[in-house]
């Protein structure tokens, strides 16, 4: 399946605009907002740079030159682990909140 997946991701076209997969995650949720806050300053800066470059390309109906496009090995998940961590935290809180305490039979 992997070759097919590679072809599909490439065909999705975001790499041609210099973006990474995690740049496409919708920002309009509390979880993602918090995750974005937890990025290191360097990562946050790079993310904004990629987005602005992609906007420019999109407005001018151009693709980035081949060497500036995101290479498959650069397309790493930098935001997903943080989102997962936050979601795990939320789930734990919900679980603990709806917990039923049973007294152990002595």
């Amino acid at each position, binding site marked *: 399946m992997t070759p097919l997946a590679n072809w599909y991701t490439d065909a999705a076209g975001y790499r041609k605009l210099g973006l990474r997969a995690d740049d496409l995650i919708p920002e309009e949720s509390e979880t993602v907002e918090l995750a974005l*806050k937890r990025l*290191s300053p360097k990562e946050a800066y790079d993310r904004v740079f990629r987005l602005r470059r992609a906007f420019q390309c999109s407005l001018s109906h151009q693709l980035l030159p081949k060497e500036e496009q995101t290479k498959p090995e650069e397309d790493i998940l930098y935001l997903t682990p943080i989102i997962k961590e936050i979601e795990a935290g939320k789930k*734990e809180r919900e679980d*603990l909140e709806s917990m039923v305490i049973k007294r152990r039979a002595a």
Partner: protein
Amino acid sequence: MISRSSIRHLTFKRCRYQPANRRGLAAAASGNFKFQTGEAAGIKIASRDLSGPTTTLALVAKAGTRYQTLPGVADGLEKFAYKNTQKRSSLRITRETELLGGEISAYHSRENIVLQAKFLRDDLPYFVELLAEVAGKTKFTGHEFHEEVIPVLTLHQRRLLTSTRDLAHDSAHKVAFHRGLGVPLYTTSPTPSARYLTEEAISTYSTVAYTKPNIAVVANGANLVELSKWTGEFFKDYPTSGEAKKLDSTTSKYFGGEERISHDSGNSMVIAFPGSSSFTTGNTYKPEIAILAALLGGQSSIKWSSGFSLLSKAIPGQLGVAVSTTHVSYSDAGLLCVALNGGANGIRAASAEVAKALESVAAGKVSKEDISKAVALAKFRALEAEQEITYRLELTGSGLIHGGNPFQMNEVAKSIESVSVEQVAKAAKDLLAGKAAVSAVGDLHVLPFAEEIGLKV
């Protein structure tokens, strides 16, 4: 595993066979409730098995502000207590503790960081595991540092900046000991610490602070056998000092001097003299300083009476100055502090009395009755401190780490009783001959210099 019931049975039996160990209802406080000490997995432990239903457990680490490697890391490490660890989240720690009806806290002093838990007796294993995990496996994540630790630190700094009392106390320590004990308990201004204080710095400090020879586990109301068993189990993978860099623990040296800080919201003055080290660490312990502190006094222990102490007699109430003399002792040094708080003019008038009072003690002009009252008060204070569990646990732990004896109060009381009038006079004379550490915070136009109130700096 030895079952709990059989241990209880054993200890109960032993008590019954040795009636000399028990204290009758009307007997004087004799300090029979001694801490038993031991070692588990290379960590020093102490416990006293009182038969109450609750236990107080403390992990004492010799890593207070005195030993910190960068400004503010001891404070930061304390604030990171009970945050996410590699095994569970801070939320889970909170909820589990709530379910068990426990109470967890952390604080730091100039010498120690203390993680403390209070809980029902049967939950000992859970809380020993918790403290082991908090000290050894905290993750020190960046987002917790920015979202939870830093805001608390900043709030604390802001409160401290408005409190002349705390500023004067810190400043007196700074003047007296320079580095080491002189480092302020909390960083006062956010600017310099922001450069040093990062989650990585705190994480690094924790690996140095929580090593086997640097911590002690102390419990009040737990069986030593059980404590030793669980400590052995949960603390066994702690690093010994081999890998970690040792903390700088040069012996404290007293310098003395003067510092004046201009401040708009109140006036405080601390006049400090070299004191005595704590009883637990032996050789520089001087009980006469504690008596001198009681004799100088300033605050009455009896309602509607100014009390017998020299300063409360010399300083009239209408000056509007609160005077109190405390003796703070550390493992290898101490500080006898006279703190004056109130209006600037009142402090100016009152501060002159401090040197005069010391001179009258040195000249032997104080009545014998006053001295015997001071001895009684000093003894009472020492024995009362014994019963305050939090203080006692920290002192016991710190005593164990420094390789001394655990804090045994009846011996302290004995040594206070044996001080003679001449010894007290000589101590006062020595203090006056040496340099004082004076700090004035507030309206510097009015507050006096040390020279003006007859002290050498």
